[in-house]
């Protein structure tokens, strides 16, 4: 009888197995498992599909399953909050599907991995240009874990146990930060905001900052979409107290917003998913991690970093991983972080995306998002019983919409919008009870004027009388 042959397993063909077993001196493969104690050998039938599926059946199965999803292409969707819908050019897709990049491991053998290394070096370089920083790593998992790593790095550098973060912060980011911080003995304290503008309350910052503060963290734009403008004051205050200043960013805004490197940031973190990476239900994400050129910083940076070098004979330029002595495979328990596998291919996508857009394109992107989001705010603010934005600050691509006057909850409103084929903003009423029934809306270059008008009409139809 011919055993089951599988397309992914060349030696599943009987003749190959026989030749190999003969060479080893065994009669069946089970003999290679006899060292596993009998009580550990699996005897029961696993509750999994038993037989292989043909490729055609597999395709049909998965496509049928996925057809039950309703996507942002099928309904205008106004969700952001850390994962943003932006157009991904076909050229980006083409590059990240190149199998030489896609199917490679981490470039441990740099001579045969120059393509990946150079692409990642270019990604790092472009992130530095965007943020105004000097050095970046080739990615961490996402913005939230980047913030966790940044807090630990700041605490190591300063030898101090506290980080101050704004009250207006994504709750998942805050939760992640706390998990990363707690084992390192770092306390996370939150700074309140001005109830009218949403801006960081400088008096509260002054009250909470101390000789224990390792870092002060802000986000620009904030989680709720507005620009934090008191950046110089916050930066000065952090540095006056011998603390680092960490800034979280959305890179799509940095064609128009001042880069954090120009207002004193020591570490920049953020989310680069919107640079050429699909949302894919929130993963893969692409954590940005950048800092100043200072050996005391660079030696404490987590993650893989690609550096420029030359061949040993000095004849050619080349790239390899740098500062590996910080890393787990050498330093083990004394490593700056345990991260090794990261989001490299997403970083390549970001590099291709930024190369395609160039400086003008990045500015156009930021300006288009801002124009459309502000247009949406204007239209929605005309809808009866809707108030937007909640804060009188400048909003870039996300903004808050409050439904308190309507007597409806955000949940109710979103259910009604969904009936009309529109997906409303993220419900933040539980995250910020003090803001009442408020949702966070996101508008980017992918939203047409017609999408925005449809939203305003649907809201008017739902709440207008």
């Amino acid at each position: 009888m011919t055993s089951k042959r599988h397309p992914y397993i060349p030696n599943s063909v009987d003749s190959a197995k026989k030749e190999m077993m003969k060479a080893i001196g065994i009669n069946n493969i089970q003999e290679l498992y006899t060292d596993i104690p009998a009580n550990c050998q699996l005897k029961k039938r696993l509750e999994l599909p038993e037989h292989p599926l043909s490729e055609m059946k597999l395709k049909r199965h998965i496509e049928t399953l996925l057809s039950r999803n309703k996507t942002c292409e099928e309904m205008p969707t106004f969700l952001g909050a850390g994962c943003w819908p932006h157009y991904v050019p076909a050229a980006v897709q083409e590059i990240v599907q190149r199998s030489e990049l896609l199917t490679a491991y981490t470039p441990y053998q740099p001579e045969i991995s120059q393509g990946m290394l150079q692409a990642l070096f270019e990604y790092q370089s472009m992130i530095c240009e965007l943020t105004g920083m000097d050095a970046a790593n080739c990615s961490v998992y996402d913005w939230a874990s980047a913030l966790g790593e940044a807090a630990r790095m700041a605490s190591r550098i300063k030898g101090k146990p506290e980080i101050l973060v704004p009250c207006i912060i994504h709750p998942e980011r805050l939760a992640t930060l706390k998990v990363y911080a707690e084992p390192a003995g770092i306390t996370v304290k939150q700074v309140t905001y001005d109830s009218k503008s949403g801006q960081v309350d400088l008096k509260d910052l002054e009250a909470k900052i101390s000789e224990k503060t390792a870092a002060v963290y802000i986000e620009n734009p904030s989680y709720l979409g507005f620009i934090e403008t008191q950046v110089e004051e916050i930066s000065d205050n952090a540095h006056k107290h011998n603390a680092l200043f960490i800034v979280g960013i959305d890179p799509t805004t940095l064609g128009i917003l001042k880069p954090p490197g120009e207002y004193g940031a020591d570490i920049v973190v953020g989310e680069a998913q919107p640079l050429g990476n699909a949302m894919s239900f929130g993963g893969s994400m692409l954590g940005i991690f950048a800092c100043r050129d200072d050996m005391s910083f660079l030696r404490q940076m987590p993650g893989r970093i690609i550096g420029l070098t030359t061949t040993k004979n000095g004849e050619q330029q080349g790239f390899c991983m740098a500062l590996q002595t910080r890393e787990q495979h050498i330093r083990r328990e004394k490593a700056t972080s345990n991260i090794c596998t990261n989001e490299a291919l997403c970083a390549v996508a970001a590099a291709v995306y930024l190369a395609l857009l160039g400086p003008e394109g990045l500015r156009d992107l930021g300006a288009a998002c801002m124009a459309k989001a502000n247009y949406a705010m204007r239209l929605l603010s005309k809808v009866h019983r809707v108030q937007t934005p909640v804060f009188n600050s400048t909003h870039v691509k996300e903004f808050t919409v409050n439904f308190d006057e309507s007597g409806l909850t955000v949940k109710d409103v979103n259910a009604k919008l969904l009936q009309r084929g529109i997906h409303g903003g993220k419900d933040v009423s539980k995250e910020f009870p003090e803001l009442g029934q408020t949702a966070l809306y996101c508008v980017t270059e992918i939203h047409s004027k017609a999408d925005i008008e449809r939203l305003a009409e649907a809201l008017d139809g739902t709440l207008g009388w």
Partner: protein
Amino acid sequence: MFRQASWNEQVIFNLGRKGRRGHLLSEVEEEVKQAVGDAEALIPKNMRRKSAPDLPELSEVEVIRHFIRLSEMNYGVDSGFYPLGSCTMKYNPKINEFLTHSPKLEMLHPYQDETTVQGILEALYKLERWLAELTGMHEVCLQPAAGAHGEFLGTILMRDYFKASGEQARRTEIIVPDSAHGTNPASAAMAGFNVVVVPSDDSGCVNLGALKAAVSERTAGLMLTNPNTLGVFENNIDEIARIIHDAGGLLYYDGANLNPLLCKARPGDMGFDIVHINVHKTFSTPHGGGGPGAGPVGVSDKLAKFLPVPRIVFDGKMYRLDYERPHSIGKIRGFYGNVAVLLRAYAYILSLGVEGLTEVAEVSVLNANYLMRKLEKVKGLTLPYDGDQPRKHECVFSAKPLKSETGVAAVDIAKRLLDYGVHAPTMYFPLIVEEALMIEPTETAEKEEIDRFVDSLRMVCEEARSNPKIVTGAPHNTAVTRLDEVKASHPKTMALSWKMHQKKRQERESG
């Protein structure tokens, strides 16, 4: 002989021309512009960007050619044999790539209403169940982005478990074998534990006497890879589990080497309490040149309540995301995990079923043992630790005899292998083997490829005697010759961005 492309490709900042564009955005509608005016003028003056970022300016043509050339200077599983030990560089099925690039996944936002994402939630829910079943664990969380991220979650779970039992102050130590992956001690330290290292015995397994001496009331747990990094199954696993559990500790399974055990043995049945799985190894998702991967974590019943939120639940009709978990550790990242990677794993399991997964495990072991027995005959290499014992998915050789004889080291062998058109094995790991070459063929290598690899390695060893310079000067056929890795990390020359490079060059030129 193999020849890799060598394009001498300029850094992208040196390419292009001012004013060129590789992508044009849609024009903002005229009415929008009129209503809002100049959007940038809305930005408070102190927050406006004054000068454009110094990004390259290229046409789409130039961008594509640049990155295609780069890709031609890279080597992946699709290029050829990639026996990188402990990395399970198996073939990545093409259909899974095709399926994950469906707009029906790519265009989903994580905060969409649950009624609009039932398809993907069902896939993730089932994948959790299947991974739990394959590892013998009670529940699985798909959120970690990588194996090390899974380890971080696992050690945080230990922390919270002992916090809940009131033992946190006392249980401060995690034990790791000296053959462990570097991530194990690094993860334990990140979660605030002290690391205690136990030596291996003559067979390459955990030294039971040393383990007994190392456990105490301070022990929070043991992190173990099984089969271990020598490819040897820890056949005292029952005793190890007993020692750790009797001391009140938890047993952590590093799933980097799970491949040979699929449908053959399960960590849960061996007594492990926490397991992480590298889906970019065992479940064939591409490694992307360093990521993204996914590192799901499975736990026993008593640890399930601590898993991160949200949990995917099914009430018989609807899949939902449940955040109401009072004992949860919270979050270790945003959203739900690297979903696009996880969907590939779901497809992979379906494409094989129990029947195919069993074949995966068995052939991975057959391939590794066949390779090992052939390589044993190559002069200059030795197989340390019990040579009579079969290995599982990988084997570790020492090039120490060759080095003593010729001066050619493991690193030289690795570099010379590149010239033969195969990726090098993992070198200098595990640390307990001198001049180590760690070789994992996986089940997707064909016999002919393994034979060629052994021949290549034999030829390299012969070259080490007949023409050592060709080996110590290798590689010769890759995009660049051997790189100066020290220079890349030296403070005077270190350039981690184009900006840093230019600054340092100017400094050097001005004296």
